[in-house]
């Protein structure tokens, strides 16, 4: 780490000035991880009198979770949600960036159309979409009707479609956010490469896939990281649209964590889920860090 003053001596001021930040991180990031790790080895359920006091059960909570068909379904839902949202919103973000990267009267309005959802609270976005998904007269069914689809589906109430409707809202909300990173990336690309490509007679598609997209690799890695973490930590729309149902078909990891802790009052299980959650996030961040460090050389 580069440093300003060469003096490396004991200076209490330094620690005093760092204390506020360090203490808040310790209390609200590090301590909760340790507490969850500890609690995950105990059976403790606040809504059942004889289980109120914690009892040590070793890896019991983890075994319960990983042998529970229902929890495995939640893991599967979480992966479906990530696969359903991350690649599509990134691709749409890239497409939007290409479309609006032009000098044109009114292009600002087009850009606004694509990125305005990102400043809306997720719960507001979901409330609006709730109407779109309504059976019979909801706009989504009407639109599908125009495309020749006959059934008027109850999107949020159908176990096969509930997760999909949650995914659709997330894509609508996030694509514009990823667009601004691609747009900034595209505008920073060196123009001489394009001039060379034009001289070589490369066509539009070749330029796009052989030059633009590879040059934006770093942007793509960055966007993938934030998209992945966002997919894990945003469940607000699930509260509004489906409540995790029907029959838990749209429950993902964080929603399950909330439900175990605050609906079922199960401290031990929710602590174990927290630990699993943290391990997934850390594994992802660290892998990502190693990969990007190695490739940058």
């Amino acid at each position: 780490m580069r440093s300003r003053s060469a003096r490396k001596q004991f200076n209490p001021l330094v620690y005093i000035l760092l204390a506020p930040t360090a203490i808040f991180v310790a209390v609200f990031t590090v301590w909760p991880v340790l507490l969850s790790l500890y609690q995950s080895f105990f059976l403790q359920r606040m809504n059942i009198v004889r289980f109120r006091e914690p009892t040590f059960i070793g890896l019991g909570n983890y075994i319960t979770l990983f042998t529970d068909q229902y929890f495995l379904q939640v893991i599967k839902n979480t992966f479906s949600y990530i696969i359903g949202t991350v690649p599509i919103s990134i691709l749409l973000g890239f497409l939007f960036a290409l479309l609006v990267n032009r000098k044109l009267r009114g292009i600002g309005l087009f850009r606004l159309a694509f990125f305005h959802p990102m400043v809306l609270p997720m719960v507001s976005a979901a409330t609006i979409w709730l109407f779109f998904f309504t059976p019979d007269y909801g706009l989504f069914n009407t639109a599908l009707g125009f495309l020749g689809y006959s059934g008027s589906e109850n999107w949020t109430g159908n176990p096969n479609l509930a997760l999909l409707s949650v995914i659709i809202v997330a894509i609508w909300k996030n694509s514009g956010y990823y667009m601004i990173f691609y747009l900034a990336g595209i505008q920073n690309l060196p123009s001489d490469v394009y001039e060379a490509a034009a001289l070589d007679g490369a066509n539009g598609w070749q330029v796009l896939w052989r030059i633009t997209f590879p040059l934006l690799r770093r942007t793509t890695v960055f966007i993938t990281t934030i998209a992945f973490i966002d997919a894990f930590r945003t469940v607000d729309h699930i509260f509004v649209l489906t409540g995790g149902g029907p029959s838990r078909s749209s429950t993902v990891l964080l929603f399950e964590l909330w439900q175990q802790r605050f609906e079922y009052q199960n401290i031990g299980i929710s602590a174990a889920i927290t630990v699993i959650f943290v391990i997934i996030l850390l594994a992802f961040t660290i892998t990502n860090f190693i990969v990007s460090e190695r490739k940058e050389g």
Partner: protein
Amino acid sequence: MNAKNHNSTRFLKKLGSGVITFITAGMALFWSIPIVWALIASFRPANDAINRGDVWFSSSLSVENYIRAWSLAPFGQYYINTVIIVLMILAVQLVTIVLAGFVFANYKFFGKRWLFFFILLQMMIPTSALLAPNFATIRWLGIFDTRLAIAIPYFGSAFGTFLMRQAFLEVPRDLVDAGIMDGCTWWQLILNVYLPPSVPALVAFGLSSATWHWNEFLWPLIITNSDKSRPLTAGLVRFTQLGEIGAQWALLSAATLMVIAPLFIMFLIFQKRFIQSFLHSGLK
């Protein structure tokens, strides 16, 4: 021959550009449908229910949905709560991140690397993953169901610290040395040397922090239990679940837009600044 060829390429280019504009406009329109629909629906008279007939337009306009929504739930209180929470977080963060960023940019000291890594842990583990144990901490602190409880986990910001450190490292070293020669104390160094050129970074952080916390839902949901501390987002979800609301979409749209409005209008006015700040702040 050559000129003719040139002309036809130009024509094709123009045609292509027109087609792309058309596609862009179509997609932009498609993407804006939800917000446009909500805006139109919110002005629909209550006696013209949406499920009967045209979901888009009604015969007349009316603001009664806004008035009814306002009277059905304490949105005024929700506004006050959200504004106080956002400002409280911002005020404390600006102090903590400037101090921490200054230390990491200006000093060499024992344990620097480790402390930096320790603080960066907050960027790797999003607070939303830790809501169960943090709930326990809030109970233990005895501040459950207060605005302070919503704000306090965000008082220290690893991301902000990182951002300020980067901004402060850009300040030319000569300037800092000159300040030291002039006998600046550490806080004079911050105020007179480091901060002035770093204001854009501070604004970028502030905007994205305010947006984030204005929109946050899950943590406020679990940590509040009454209208005296509940912010807009949690209030809106509660509102949608009120028994008498049912499928009154016009009313719901009005409530939704009330929640969105202040931040969204700010965003429309200061679009460029917001975009810049989002670009700065991929990770919170």
